[in-house]
């Protein structure tokens, strides 16, 4: 799949901007029709899109199948909650710290885990995430099994984050900024190196690249962005819940990435949206919506094996195939 997916066409850029504009006015539309509840729902969706995107950077760009991403997601959430407990509510302090804590954690876990590969890497990242999970639910000071409630949302200058619409816009801005950043990274030197490492790791080493450092940094960037998503989710529900750290959370994020499209820039977004919307819609119709979701996922595996985003993209760019620089 690789680089071809990221080659931005002007058309794609316009599509992205139009989508961004649409999402920006969404709260106004929802409020006009009296469905402001869905503002909060879409905020949550965007936060999960951010978390899944951060994992997709590690899995899709870095080629590392990490099964412990919940650790960083949760660490970001708990950092904000713990700081709030200690009277630090400013987002300008707490959110960067959440990112830093998640990044540090990713650095430590990555240093050890990257010694292994393949399935062993999957399992060792899972093991570390489980350790973090059990640590948090065992420590009463950090809320134990109850999680930590936030007295209020973080403060961000004079922005009233307690207003769901304002919070939504902040989340949207974070997601847009992240996507822009990742788009730039993948087209910059670092991104090309990552792409080549995914393609042929030993050859990169033999071209003089310290492969381990590149992978580690990719892992850390992914962790840091998950930390940001964690900071947002803690603010969204005003709760840092241990379930954010659970292995099922790592699994859900991974499923979002695979469904959306591994290595596709918008894969995480598409995956999160697909999964959460399916959940919302299916649970309306049947109590047994999990089974329906399972069948839908099987469909993805066997019919859209590279995920939904690339599938769309292929459809979308079919007419432009002749321009592709291939022979």
């Amino acid at each position, binding site marked *: 799949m690789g680089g071809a997916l990221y080659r931005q066409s002007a058309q794609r850029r316009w599509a992205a901007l139009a989508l961004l504009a649409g999402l920006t006015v969404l709260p106004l539309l929802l409020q006009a029709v009296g469905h402001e509840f869905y503002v909060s729902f879409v905020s949550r969706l965007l936060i999960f899109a951010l978390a899944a995107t951060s994992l997709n950077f590690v899995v899709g760009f870095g080629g590392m199948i990490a099964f412990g991403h919940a650790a960083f997601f949760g660490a970001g959430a708990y950092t904000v909650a713990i700081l709030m407990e200690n009277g630090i509510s400013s987002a300008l302090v707490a959110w960067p710290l959440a990112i830093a804590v998640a990044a540090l954690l990713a650095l430590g876990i990555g240093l050890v885990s990257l010694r292994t590969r393949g399935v062993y890497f999957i399992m060792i990242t899972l093991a570390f995430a489980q350790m973090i999970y059990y640590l948090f639910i065992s420590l009463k000071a950090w809320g134990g099994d109850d999680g930590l409630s936030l007295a209020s949302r973080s403060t961000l200058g004079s922005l009233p984050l307690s207003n769901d619409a304002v919070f939504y816009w902040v989340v949207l801005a974070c997601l847009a900024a992240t996507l822009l950043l990742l788009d*730039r990274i993948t*087209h910059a030197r670092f991104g090309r190196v990552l792409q080549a490492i995914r393609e042929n790791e030993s*050859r990169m080493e*033999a071209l003089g690249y310290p492969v381990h450092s590149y992978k580690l940094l990719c892992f850390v960037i992914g962790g840091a962005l998950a930390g940001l998503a964690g900071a947002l989710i803690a603010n969204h529900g005003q709760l840092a819940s241990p379930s954010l750290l659970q292995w099922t959370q790592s699994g859900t994020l991974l499923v979002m990435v695979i469904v959306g499209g591994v290595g596709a820039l918008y894969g995480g977004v598409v995956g999160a949206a697909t999964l959460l919307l399916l959940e919302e819609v299916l649970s309306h119709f049947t109590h047994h919506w999990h089974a329906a979701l399972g069948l839908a996922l099987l469909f993805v595996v066997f019919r859209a094996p590279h995920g939904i985003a690339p599938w769309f993209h292929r459809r979308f760019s079919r007419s432009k195939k002749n321009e592709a620089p291939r022979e």
Partner: protein
Amino acid sequence: MSEPLLNIVGVSRHFGGVHALSDVTLDVVAGEVHALIGPNGAGKTTLIHQISGAQMPDAGRIEFSGADITRLSMHARVAAGVARSWQITNIFGRLSALDNVALAVQGRQRDWGSSFRFWAPVDAEQPIIDEAAAWLAEVGLAGRESTLAGSLAHGEQRQLELALALATKPQLLLLDEPMAGMGPEESERVVELIEHLGRRVSILLVEHDMDAVFRLADRISVLVSGRLVFTGIPDEVRAHPEVRRAYLGDVDA
């Protein structure tokens, strides 16, 4: 003779009970083309692995430019000036030929700075692209820049492999059967290329094509069952009785 560029002292390597290399001592001096010959399974590729850093020896020492590199990682050795090619083609099949070489060029931190750059688009770095194109031309791949490496012909892939190694601008080039699977025309081009390079770069060449070896090599070392049997100039090697018996014998026959 000048100071050796590469100095291998008493290197041994075994896999389980098999001794792939036993106490090998060898040197390559600056500007030399040093050929390594021997029957299949003699340990030639294993020795290349030890020098390039793909594997670490169990015993012995490897010095490069006077520094001990025995325990250095592969990428650090490349940065120090040791590059290699593979016996089995090892390239980035899903990138264009140009992107393949551009990666090798970009990897030279001393010339281009760090690759830990996250914002500026790499497609806009014209000097790197120009240099990559020049390397492609040098190995005879001009005009194939935008072809996916995976869809190049086998011989072309071998040439690309060579371009990748060259683009790291090494002092020492480890070539593991660069002409394997090539037609006579392509082989001739590679031989010419090595002759041409010989003045700028030191080369340790593993090759089965004896005509090419005797044409290119300044010195030849013979490896048999993991042991270095003999090192000398081509004429000495031709004359050496043990070498004839052990290796060249079947060439004469």
